[in-house]
Every structure is written in structure tokens, then in C-alpha cells.
């Protein structure tokens, strides 16, 4: 069975057939994706499915990975933080190191292509060192929120971006004004991945049992890092407001270890402190690869929360909706694109608001179920990787017609 056939079972024959039709117009196009790691992290995860699917669609797609000394990754981590607006202090020699590593990689990598997608800032200076004519078009794919970057970092990166034909951001709010076209491609989830695929009922129950959760009682769930912007304390407050009404209710706050993040460790301490000895409130520290555990938790939840105060796109919301769960989300970022009042869940602005909406959803099982079904369809139509792929193909076709807003190909 071909890769796309597996998605056909989920999104339907027509969607996949139309992807093939669209891709026919790009057959044989040489495309290279460049990033900084083959495994680990969201970008590697995306390229892991995108490159084989592009190949299956008849596009000559390849994936190259830059290499550098450990110090290079310290610098690029600072770039990452700086792009997201955190103050960073880098010296001239740090910028020189980044520049030099890009020069070495431009010589080492096979970048001959019609289009090269450069993902995030690590390989951003490659166009500077590639012989003219080797690459027809460079496209910068920025996966991070670059709307309010550190000025010094942005000045350095902006010089590199001037060589790109286009940039791609995940959401308009993440974009930074640039001279080149700024395409918008929303993130997506893979319905066949460990985190999102159907799992056996026995595995789900075994997971709950292992985590000390009762499958027979209502479960509220928030999956996110222990970060103030995710407002785990607000979730606990909402849960506490409802305890007098639902004494059987359980709350699980699932996140990863925060050893490398001093503030995360502090937030975790506060969360544990606030949780106290409440046997119905579980603070779950899960390893980064606990995808099936998260899958089982999301499938077991009665209501999923993502009560963020500030958020990127919020893929945990997408994951929960895909599993037919209504979501109560903070009214910010990409959550507002996914959570629609009375349709897929509720947007809230306070712990009291979250408590009120949880109360509503626990009270009306039929509405909960209907919202869950709507959420599942909504994600199928808008936030699966087939849509993501279609957006990329469309954007590639648009590049040949820079001025037109409607093109027949």
C-alpha cells in the first residue's frame, strides 16, 4: 500500500486524487528541504512525512541536514529564543560562527534544485554561499513566532532573508513584515502518528490504570509544558471551583520534565504545591516520546482544556478535537482559530469562565458529544497533513505567477 492510500481511508479518495492532480503540474520539480536535525523536534517530524509524500506525488524532493559544532547549536538556540522575543546577548564571534557554519554547509550539501526550503534560522545564510544558478528559488519557512523578535538577532537574519523569493509563516500573527511575499500555511497533525492514531481499548485502559486514573469517572485534561503562559494554576482553580458540584471529577495535568528550564521547574513546583494531596488531581511528568500515553489520555478525557494566556497555534487543541473531544481554550493565538463557541468547545478568559464551561459540558452529555463530532470533522477538513501538503503545492504553483491572484494551471 502506498503512503497516500493510507490517508485516503481518512480524508477520502477525492482529496487524495486531487492532491495527485495538483502535483502533476509540478512533476519532476527538484525540491530540497534543509533543516538542522534529522530527528527530534517539530520540523523534523514534518519533513519526516512531507518528503516521502512529495516523492510519491512525483516531485523530486530531498532532505538535507546542516551540521555544525556544539557551539553552533548554542548560538542557534539563542536565535530561536531571540526570534520569539526573549532578550538574548550574543557576541560578534557568535554571529561569525553561524555565518561560517553556513558557508561550510553550502559547500558540503547538495543544494542543486529548483526550489530550496530553508527551515528556521539555523541554515538561513545558505543562499549567500551558493553559486548563482544552482538554486532557482529560495524559500524561508519560519516555524516560530517572529512577530516581536530581538532587534539585534532580527537585523542579522534580515540581511539573509533579502535573498529569498518568499517566506512562509504559520499564522499572520507570527509574521514579520518582509519585502518578499509572506505565505501563510497553518500547521497540521498526522492522523496516523502514534499521538493521533486509533489505539486499542485495552491499551487505553492500561494507560489510565498505570497513571492512577479511573476510567469510570469524568476526566479533565490539559496537556502542555509547565509554563506560566499555559496557565496550569488557572486550570487547577477552575477545577477547585467545580469540586463542590462534581466530587468524582478527576484532573490530569500532563507535561514534560522541566529540568532544563528554570522557570518551568518553578512553575511545576507551584503546580505541585497547589495540587497538594488531592488524589483526584494528577500532575503527570511524561517523557518527550510518550505519544501513545498522551493519545490514550486525550481519548479518555471528558473535556480537554488548553487554558493558555498566550499560545502559538496550539496543536494539542487540534489533537483533542481530532479525538472528538470538546475543548475549552484560552482566547488567544491559534486556539481562537480552532475553538468555536458551541461548535467545537468554548473560548474562555478566566478560571471562572473555564469552570462555568466545564460545568456546562459535564452537565450536557449530548452537547459534549455533538461538539466532539463537529471538532473531529473540523480538523479533518482543515488541520490534517493532506491540507498542509495541498497548501505547499498551491504555493509552489503560485511562485511562477507572482502578480496574479487567480491562476488557471
Amino acid at each position, binding site marked *: 500500500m502506498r503512503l497516500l492510500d493510507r490517508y485516503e481511508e481518512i480524508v477520502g479518495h477525492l482529496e487524495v486524487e*486531487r492532491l495527485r492532480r495538483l502535483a502533476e503540474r509540478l512533476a519532476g520539480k527538484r525540491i530540497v528541504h534543509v533543516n538542522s536535525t534529522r530527528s527530534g523536534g517539530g520540523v523534523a517530524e514534518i519533513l519526516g512525512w512531507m518528503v516521502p509524500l512529495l516523492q510519491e506525488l512525483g516531485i523530486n524532493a530531498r532532505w538535507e541536514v546542516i551540521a555544525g559544532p556544539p557551539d553552533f547549536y548554542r548560538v542557534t538556540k539563542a536565535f530561536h529564543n531571540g526570534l520569539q522575543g526573549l532578550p538574548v546577548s550574543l557576541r560578534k564571534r557568535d554571529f561569525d560562527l553561524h555565518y561560517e557554519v553556513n558557508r561550510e554547509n553550502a559547500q558540503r550539501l547538495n543544494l542543486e534544485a529548483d526550489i530550496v526550503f530553508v527551515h528556521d534560522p539555523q541554515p538561513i545564510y545558505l543562499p549567500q554561499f551558493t553559486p548563482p544558478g544552482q538554486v532557482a528559488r529560495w524559500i524561508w519557512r519560519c516555524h516560530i513566532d517572529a512577530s516581536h523578535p530581538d532587534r539585534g538577532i532580527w537585523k542579522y537574519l534580515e540581511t539573509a532573508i533579502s535573498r529569498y523569493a518568499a517566506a512562509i509563516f504559520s499564522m499572520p500573527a507570527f509574521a514579520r513584515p518582509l519585502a518578499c511575499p509572506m*505565505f501563510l500555511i497553518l500547521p497540521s497533525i498526522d492522523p496516523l502518528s502514534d499521538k493521533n492514531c486509533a489505539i486499542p481499548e485495552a491499551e487505553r485502559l492500561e494507560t489510565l490504570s498505570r497513571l492512577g486514573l479511573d476510567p469510570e469517572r469524568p476526566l479533565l485534561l490539559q496537556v502542555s509544558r509547565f509554563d506560566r503562559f499555559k496557565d496550569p494554576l488557572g486550570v487547577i482553580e477552575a477545577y477547585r471551583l467545580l469540586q463542590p458540584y462534581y466530587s468524582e471529577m478527576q484532573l490530569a495535568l500532563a507535561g514534560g520534565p522541566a529540568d532544563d528550564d528554570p522557570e518551568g521547574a518553578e512553575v511545576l513546583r507551584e503546580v505541585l504545591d497547589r495540587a497538594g494531596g488531592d488524589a483526584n488531581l494528577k500532575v503527570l511528568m511524561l517523557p518527550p516520546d510518550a505519544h501513545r500515553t498522551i493519545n490514550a489520555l486525550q481519548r479518555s478525557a471528558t473535556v480537554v482544556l488548553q487554558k493558555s494566556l*498566550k499560545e502559538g497555534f496550539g496543536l494539542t487543541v487540534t489533537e483533542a478535537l481530532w479525538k472528538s473531544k470538546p475543548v475549552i481554550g484560552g482566547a488567544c493565538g491559534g486556539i481562537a482559530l480552532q475553538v468555536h463557541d458551541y461548535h*467545537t468547545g468554548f473560548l474562555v478568559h478566566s478560571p471562572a469562565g473555564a469552570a462555568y464551561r466545564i460545568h456546562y459540558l459535564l452537565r450536557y452529555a449530548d452537547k459534549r458529544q455533538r461538539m466532539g463530532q463537529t471538532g473531529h470533522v473540523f480538523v479533518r477538513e482543515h488541520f490534517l497533513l493532506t491540507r498542509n501538503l*495541498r497548501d505547499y503545492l*498551491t504555493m509552489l504553483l503560485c511562485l511562477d*505567477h507572482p502578480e496574479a491572484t487567480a*491562476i488557471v494551471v
Partner: protein
Amino acid sequence: MQVTEPFCVMDCSLVRCATGRVCSNLRELSEAICSVPDAVLEHHMMRCALEDHFELHEFPNDLARWCWTGLGDNVLGEQLGLIDPYRQPSTSALRAALVNVLEERLWGLAYVPWSRPGLELHLVQSRLIAYDTGERIVTPAALLEAVERMSPRSLFYHVHDARRRTAGQSDDFSRWLEQCGAEARLVTALRAIDFYFLNLSQLRQALVDAFGRYVAEAPPVARIAP
């Protein structure tokens, strides 16, 4: 019996582009609508239907929706929801209609409504790629059958975008049927569908209903041209 070309089923796909322009309050929206490129208006008033969020919302365009949910200005949301861009003779006429409503609203307000942080309106434009699916239809009955299963994006292209291409006069289905010599009542019924206020699923149903009333008893009217 008339000879005509078969109906060519198209599909389309849209990609959005950021403009860098953000509105946090009604005054900013009003100023933006005066000056943004036509493509921005077309996206937020027409092409937003292709994203099919309307199924989840009450309003047929992004501007009405944002005024209702982002600004909390329900009156303005209702007024903008009533502006049908396909009934405007041009994009400049559409712009003038929008500006008129926005300025009138601003004129009468004691304060300028603001959106909550995080719910600002990011103005975007879009590019639409249309492509031949390879499917050809030769009879009205086959067209009905095709409408029942074609993608929502095909429906958008053959109805919404067709109106844009023909300056509001016709959708592709009724135009082809007219060329085929199909019953005038069917052509009229299809053109009478108030497509702007339907989401794409509702539009499909409206088309099927209109076809259903006439196709069953109609004789075959088309054959493929040599």
C-alpha cells in the same frame, strides 16, 4: 438538440499571504478598508467562504465575523453581514459600501470599540490556483450526479468564483446548461440560489434541490461535440 462542449470540472486551491496589516479597533479597520489592495477585500469578503468556516459561524464574511466576535460590536457585525459583494458592480463599489457602513458606525459611537489582545484582525490576501480535474460531464443528469460528489472547492470555483469571472451574472453550471439548451426554468432556478449566504455544504444541497426539480423529467439535451 444542441451540440455543445462537455462541462469541464475544475477544482481550486487557495494559499493565503500576510499583508502585515493588523486592526485592533474599529478606526483601524475603517482606515484599512479605505486603503488595502483589492485582493485583501476579495479574500475577506469572498474567498473566506472557501475556508468554509462559515459552517461554524453566523456570518458570510470575515469582516462581519470579526466585528461581532473580536470587537463585540453586534450591530456592525449584522450590517456587514448583509453586504453581498457579488451584488456590487466592482471591487471599488464594494469598498465604498464597506467604508460607508464603517464610517456611519464610527460617526454614531461615543467610543471606538477595541478587540481583546490576541483577537486582532490580521488582514491577508490570497492566491487561488484553479486546475482541470480531467472529469467531463455530457448531460444535465450527469452534472447533477457530479455536483453531489464534487469537492467543496469545485463548488466554490464553479459558483462563487464564476460570479466573479462573469461580473456577477452567472455560475458555470447554469451557463453550460443554457448553452446545452436546458430548460430555462432550471437555469433560472440555479441562478436564483442565494449562494453568498450559504456555506458550501448548504450550496451543494441547494444545487441538488434545484436540479432535482427539473432534471428527472427533462429529456437529454446535450451530446459531446466532435
